[in-house]
C-alpha cells in the first residue's frame, strides 16, 4: 500500500528513500516486456529467471525486472544486465540457467546470445554499442528499459513527477504554456499543430469546465509506438497530462485508448490507481489545492476515432463520426466544452520540457520541428522495431544505419511514412531530413510515426490499392467524397491491377483525389489520396507498365503474372507437384521436367517457394 504524499517535500523524501533502497551495484536483469517481446515469449523468460533465482536462493545477489519495450523488436526477447549494459538477444527460457551461472555468478559473457553486427559481422556486448541504438536519441523512450511500468516507485526513483511538482509549485499556468510554446513542441499525432498554442487557446476559451484528453487510438497498420509508450512508461504520459490540465485549467481528463491494446489499458489503469493513492492525482494534488481526475475510456477500434471530433463523439457515447471543425475543439469539444486533445507521445514530451527547460529541448531537431520522434520501423528491413530519432535525421540514416538496410540483400524501393494516409517516398528522397514540413512537402506526412520500408518485390500500384482498401473499410461513411470516392478509386485500382486499366485512369485518379482533399469532411478523407498521389508522382512508370503493357514489374499483381517451369533446371523431383494446392503440376517421371497447367494455376507461388533448383519462373 502506498502512502499519500501531502507536499512536494514528501515526494522528494520518497524519492530519496527509494534511491537509498536501490543498490546500484547489485546486478539487475531487465527483460523487455513490450508487445513484440511478448509475442516472442518474454513472459516465460521472466518466469524462468524468477523461478531459478528463487530456487537457487539468489535473491540477495540479483534483481529481476520486467520492463517496458526496449525497441529492438526484431531480436526479442531482449535481456539487458546492469550494471555493465550487457545486451542479450533472442533469449529463451533454456538460456536462463547459463546467464545466471555465467554472467551473474562469474561475470563472464554468454557469447552465443550476443548481437552480431550485420555489417561488420562482429559480436556486440553492450546495448549502447548496438548500431540500432547508436544513432537514436531516446529521450522519451529511453527510460522504458529501466523501469517496471507497473511500479510508480520505479518511475519516481528515476525522477518521475518532479516536473509536475515544479510546474505546480514554481510555475504559473501561463508560464508553463509559454515554456511549451517556446519549446516548439508540435503534436505527434499527425497534423503537427503547435502544442503550446493549442493549450493557450483552450485556456483562454470561455467556460468553467474544460477537458484534457490523451489520444491513444493509434490505428495505423504497422504503427505501435504509442502503444509501447503507454505500456512501457504510462506515468510519463500521465505526468504530462496532469501538467497540461494544470496549465489549461482542467479538473477532468480522459485517456482514450483502444481496447485492442490490453496491456496499455491495464498499465494505464494501474498507473492511475497508483498516482491516485500517492496523491499525485485526484483531490488536492501534493497539497497544492489543485484537483484533477482522469478516466480511461476504451475505444472500439475504429480508425476514424483517432480523429479529434470523432474521438470526442465516441467519448460521449455516440457513434464515432467526425464533425466539421470550423469551431475548434479547444473551444467546443467534448460535450461542447473547451477540450485539449494530444497524442500519447506529445504528452510524454511535456515532463521533459518542464524538467530540462524549453531551451534545452530546442537544441534537438530542426528549425520548425523540435525534439525527437518515435517511429515504428517495419517492413522489409533488417532491424524492425521502435526507434526514437532527433527530428531532421535523414530517411537514409533511419533505414540503413539504424534499420540495418533491406532484408535479404534486396534493393530498396520506397518508404511509406505516416500510416495509410501518408505517402510513399522513393530512393531519390532518401536524404530527406525527416520533420513535419519536409515530409509534407514531399507529399507524405509524419502521422503518428509509422514507417514501412518496401523493397523491389513490392508493387507500388498494389500498395496504393492496399491502403485504399483499408481506408474504404475505415471510412465512417458520413460524407459523400470519402465514402463514395475511396471506393471508386479502389475500383480503378482493381481495373489497373487486373489488366483492364486505361490511359485515362491516372487522370481520373488525380481529379478524384483533388476533390477528396478539398471537400472531405475530416482528415481521413482529406489525406486518403496521399498514397495514390505519391505513388503516381514517384512511381508513374509502374502505373504505366500495368496500364500500357499489362505487366506488373514487381511481379505482385496476380492477374498480370504467369508462372512457368524452367525445363533446363527442373530435375523432376516432384516437390512442387506435392505442394501445389490446385494439382496444376503434373509429374512426368524421374529426371523429366514437370508440366504446369496454367489454366488450373491460381498463382499462389508455392511451387516457386518450395523449389530448391530455382526452376520456377515468373513473368
Amino acid at each position, binding site marked *: 500500500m502506498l502512502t499519500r504524499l501531502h507536499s512536494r517535500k514528501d515526494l522528494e523524501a520518497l524519492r530519496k528513500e527509494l534511491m537509498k533502497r536501490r543498490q546500484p551495484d547489485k546486478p539487475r536483469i531487465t527483460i523487455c516486456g513490450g508487445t513484440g517481446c511478448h509475442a516472442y515469449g518474454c513472459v516465460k523468460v521472466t518466469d524462468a529467471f524468477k523461478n531459478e533465482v528463487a530456487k537457487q536462493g539468489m535473491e540477495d545477489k540479483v534483481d529481476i525486472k520486467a520492463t517496458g519495450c526496449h525497441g529492438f523488436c526484431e531480436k526479442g526477447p531482449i535481456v539487458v544486465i546492469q550494471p555493465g549494459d550487457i545486451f542479450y538477444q533472442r533469449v529463451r527460457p533454456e538460456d536462463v540457467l547459463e546467464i545466471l551461472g555465467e554472467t551473474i555468478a562469474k561475470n563472464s559473457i554468454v557469447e552465443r546470445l550476443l548481437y552480431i553486427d550485420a555489417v561488420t559481422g562482429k559480436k556486440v556486448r553492450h546495448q549502447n554499442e548496438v548500431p540500432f541504438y547508436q544513432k537514436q536519441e531516446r529521450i522519451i523512450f529511453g527510460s522504458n528499459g529501466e523501469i517496471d511500468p507497473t511500479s510508480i516507485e520505479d518511475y519516481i526513483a528515476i525522477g518521475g513527477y518532479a516536473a509536475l511538482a515544479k510546474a505546480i509549485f514554481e510555475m504559473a499556468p501561463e508560464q508553463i504554456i509559454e515554456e511549451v510554446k517556446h519549446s516548439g513542441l508540435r503534436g505527434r499525432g499527425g497534423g503537427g499543430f503547435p502544442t503550446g498554442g493549442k493549450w493557450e487557446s483552450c485556456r483562454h476559451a470561455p467556460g468553467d469546465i474544460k477537458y484534457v484528453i490523451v489520444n491513444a487510438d493509434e490505428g495505423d497498420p504497422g504503427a505501435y509506438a504509442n502503444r509501447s509508450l503507454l505500456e512501457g512508461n504510462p506515468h510519463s504520459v500521465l505526468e504530462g497530462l496532469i501538467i497540461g490540465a494544470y496549465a489549461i485549467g482542467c479538473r477532468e481528463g480522459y485517456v482514450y485508448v483502444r481496447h485492442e491494446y490490453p496491456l496499455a489499458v491495464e498499465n494505464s489503469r494501474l498507473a492511475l490507481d497508483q498516482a491516485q493513492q500517492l496523491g499525485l492525482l485526484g483531490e488536492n494534488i501534493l497539497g497544492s489545492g489543485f484537483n484533477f481526475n482522469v478516466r480511461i475510456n476504451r475505444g472500439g477500434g475504429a480508425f476514424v476515432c483517432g480523429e479529434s471530433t470523432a474521438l470526442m463523439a465516441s467519448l460521449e457515447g455516440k457513434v464515432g463520426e467526425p464533425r466539421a471543425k*470550423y469551431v475548434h475543439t479547444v473551444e467546443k469539444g467534448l460535450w461542447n466544452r473547451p477540450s485539449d486533445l494530444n497524442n500519447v507521445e506529445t504528452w510524454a514530451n511535456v515532463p521533459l520540457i518542464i524538467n530540462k527547460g524549453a531551451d534545452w529541448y530546442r537544441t534537438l531537431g530542426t528549425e520548425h520541428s523540435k525534439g525527437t520522434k518515435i517511429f515504428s520501423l517495419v517492413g522489409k528491413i533488417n532491424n524492425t522495431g521502435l526507434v526514437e530519432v532527433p527530428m531532421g535525421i535523414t530517411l537514409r540514416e533511419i533505414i540503413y544505419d539504424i534499420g540495418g538496410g533491406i532484408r535479404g540483400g534486396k534493393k530498396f524501393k520506397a518508404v511509406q511514412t505516416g500510416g495509410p494516409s501518408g505517402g510513399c517516398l522513393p530512393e531519390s528522397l532518401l536524404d530527406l531530413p525527416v520533420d513535419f514540413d519536409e515530409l509534407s512537402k514531399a507529399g507524405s506526412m509524419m502521422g503518428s510515426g509509422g514507417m514501412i520500408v518496401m523493397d523491389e518485390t513490392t508493387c507500388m500500384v498494389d500498395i496504393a490499392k492496399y491502403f485504399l482498401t483499408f481506408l474504404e473499410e475505415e471510412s465512417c461513411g458520413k460524407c*459523400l467524397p470519402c465514402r463514395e470516392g475511396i471506393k471508386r478509386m479502389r475500383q480503378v485500382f482493381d481495373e489497373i491491377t487486373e489488366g483492364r486499366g486505361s490511359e485515362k485512369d491516372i487522370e481520373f485518379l488525380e481529379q478524384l483525389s483533388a476533390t477528396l482533399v478539398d471537400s472531405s469532411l475530416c482528415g481521413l478523407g482529406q489525406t486518403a489520396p496521399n498514397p495514390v498521389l505519391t505513388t503516381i508522382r514517384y512511381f508513374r512508370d509502374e502505373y504505366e507498365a500495368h496500364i500500357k503493357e499489362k505487366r506488373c514489374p514487381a511481379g505482385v499483381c496476380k492477374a498480370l503474372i504467369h508462372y512457368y517451369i524452367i525445363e533446363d533446371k527442373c530435375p523432376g523431383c516432384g516437390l512442387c507437384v506435392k505442394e501445389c494446392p490446385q494439382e496444376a503440376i503434373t509429374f512426368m517421371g524421374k529426371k523429366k521436367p514437370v508440366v504446369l497447367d496454367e489454366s488450373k494455376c491460381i498463382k499462389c507461388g508455392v511451387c516457386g517457394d518450395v523449389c530448391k533448383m530455382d526452376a520456377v519462373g515468373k513473368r
Partner: protein
Amino acid sequence: MVTFNIDGREFTAEEGQTILQVAREKGIDIPTLCHHEAIEPYGACRLCIVEISKGRRSRIVTSCLYLVEEGLEVKTNSPRVISNRKMLVELLLARCSKNKVIKELASQMGIEQSMIKPEYLEDNDCMVCGLCVRTCEQVVGVSAISLVNRGITKEPASPFLEPARDCIGCGSCYYVCPTGAIKMEDRNGTRIIYNWKVEFKLKKCKVCGNYWAPEKQLEYIRKKWNLPDDFFDICPTCK
C-alpha cells in the same frame, strides 16, 4: 453584425449565421441535398461547398456549417468550387444512377454521362444524407431509426433491421427525403413504411369518414400535449 462578401457583392449579416443562410436570404443559389432549415446542419453531401478566403489563403468549406465572419470573401461558383462539385455529383450519379432527382442535378451541372464505368454504376435511391434519421430525432423526437454500419455500407435502418418499434408512422422521413428513397403507402386504412418494416392503422374521421393519420401518431401527439381523449376524432378538414 458582420460585413462580408459573396461573389463580389457586399452583405451584412448577424453573427452566428451560416454562409448558406445568408446566401439563401439574398437569393444566391447554392445547391444542397442534406440540408433542411428545420434541422441542424450536418455537412454530409458537401454540395454546398464554397471557396472562402481571408487574406491570401483560400480554402473550400461547406457553407451550411461555416459561420459568416467579418471581412470574409466567399465564392460560390469559382472554378475550384465547380470542379469539386461536379466530381461530387459524379459520385452521386454513380451510386444513384437511375434516381430522377440525382439525374436532374447531374444534368444541371452539365453531366450527361457518368465518368464511372457502366459496370460499376449502382441503382440506389438513398445517398445517406441522414435527413430521415435526423428529422426523426430532432423534429419528431422519437429516434425510431438510425444510421447503421460504416463506410460504404452505411445506411439508415430500423434497429437490428427489425420492424422499427418506436416509429409512430408520421411519415416525416418520407416527406423530408430529397431523393424519394423512402417508400411509404396509405392503403385501405393502413399506412406502410417499407424501409422500416412497419404498418399502422389509420384513424377514420367521425364526420367525413376519411382515413387521415396513423392512430399511433395521433396518440403520441395527444399524450405529449395532454389533449382530451376525443381531440382527434374529427379530421382537420372537418373541424
